């Protein structure tokens, strides 16, 4: 349902921001990575919207996933704005917090969705 793609996108955005903060990555590289994460996020969202729930349980799951993906999408967008540094944009620090929150939510969701191995 696109959860894995979302996790990957959020992870990429996080590491892009932290490396930019640490001075390892150039701003250009970080921006490219966050942009690409945004594209990945859209693909994840369309995967979720293509999913057809079959019963009440999967409907509830789909709702949770859609919510989480929406939050992740917002977080990545804020990360992009933070990097661009426009006036009124969130700080990198808060964007990172948002991304971390999103990552934790997705991890929890993934644990519930995937059958135990």
């Amino acid at each position: 349902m696109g959860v894995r793609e979302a996790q990957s996108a959020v992870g990429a955005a996080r590491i892009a921001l932290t490396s930019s903060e640490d001075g390892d990555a150039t701003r250009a590289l970080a921006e490219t990575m966050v942009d690409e994460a945004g594209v990945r996020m859209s693909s994840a969202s369309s995967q979720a919207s293509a999913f057809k729930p079959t019963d009440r349980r999967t409907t509830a799951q789909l709702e949770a996933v859609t919510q989480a993906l929406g939050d992740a999408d917002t977080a990545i967008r804020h990360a992009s704005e933070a990097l661009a540094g426009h006036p009124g944009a969130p700080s990198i620090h808060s964007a990172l917090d948002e991304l971390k929150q999103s990552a934790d939510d997705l991890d929890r969701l993934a644990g519930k969705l995937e059958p135990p191995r």
Partner: protein
Amino acid sequence: MKKYLAVALGILTAIGGFVDIGDLVTNAVVGSRFGMSLAWVVVVGVGGICLFAQMSGRVAAISGRATFEIIRERLGPRAGTANLVASVMITVMTLTAEVGGIALALQLASGVQPLLWIPVAAFAVWLVIWRVKFSIMENVAGILGLTLVVFGVALFLLGPNWGDLRSQALQQTSHPRETPLTYWYYAIALFGAAMTPYEVFFFSSGGVEEKWTEKDLVTSRANVMVGFPLGGVLSLFIAGCAATVLLPRGVDVDALSQTVLPVAIGAGKLGLAIVILGVVAATFGAALETGLSAGYALAQFNGWSWGKFRRPAEAARFHLTIIVCLIIAVLVLLTGIDPILVTEYSVVFSAVALPLTYLPILVVANDPQYVGEHVNGRLLNAVSSVYLVIILVAAVAAIPLMILTKAGA
């Protein structure tokens, strides 16, 4: 002394020339999803390409005939034509991936959108093929591509847990989000990335371009036996970097930026600048090779005059073919298709096409009419036969696995 320098240059060129966009992307993807558990595929693939290149180089040096002339002569009209069509299609697909790779790398360097770089990159590739001497082209691209060794430097600077990496490689630790199907799919993809068919057309045609004779056999063998394995080590560094930085964070590689990020983290902005240079050089060099290979394949099969050692006016249809292939690559890329996607498909299809080129070379390397007394020894034939089986299995399994795993999703 001069001979040692020539050998050294050849080896360095082979190392730098080994890695192309397929190796970069596939090794990074594999490292980020499977850690080092697929490292053995790189070893097997390098062994195969060494074998393959060595045989085709020998045939070129002794008989003066290049791969596709031989395919036409040995396979007969229908099988030969089918082989040609498939090989040219794969080579053009790989060319498209390489040109896309150049554009992506230039984007990382400049921030300018890849779509704008695509025509520029293709034009530059054509210009070099048109005007620059073969040996200069090879040596410069190869030496510059050697800068990719920064992946190794970065890996050491990242201070990974070497024990972890080793156990991933040897004990095949399981990865909860992957299935055996995706594992084997990526094994085939990695194999196709290491044993690209165009490499063989190029190597044997290059031998004829540089007018190899029996005396050059030793040099060519050294280039292959030392250069390619070191190139394989480079591939493992790329996977190792991804395994160290991206695997723990659950980032599945799907972009060039993610491939080079570990180098930035390990070696800072300087490392980043070096690796971007290396990627541009490696993909540019590979674009030259695939462009030329498409020309070699078509021209040799049809018996046209070919080669960079001739003035373009004396190899008109050969150069026209290359121009047309570059135009096709540009048109495909301008549709906005993701070059990484093209790359991922091209390596899998390379694995499918491998038997087409491998088998004729194996047969001819045993034919005294072509190689005189330098026929394959029994050990070489035994090992080559084992590889033939591996190649056939990979070729047959590739498409079903691609369908079953939805191209590795």
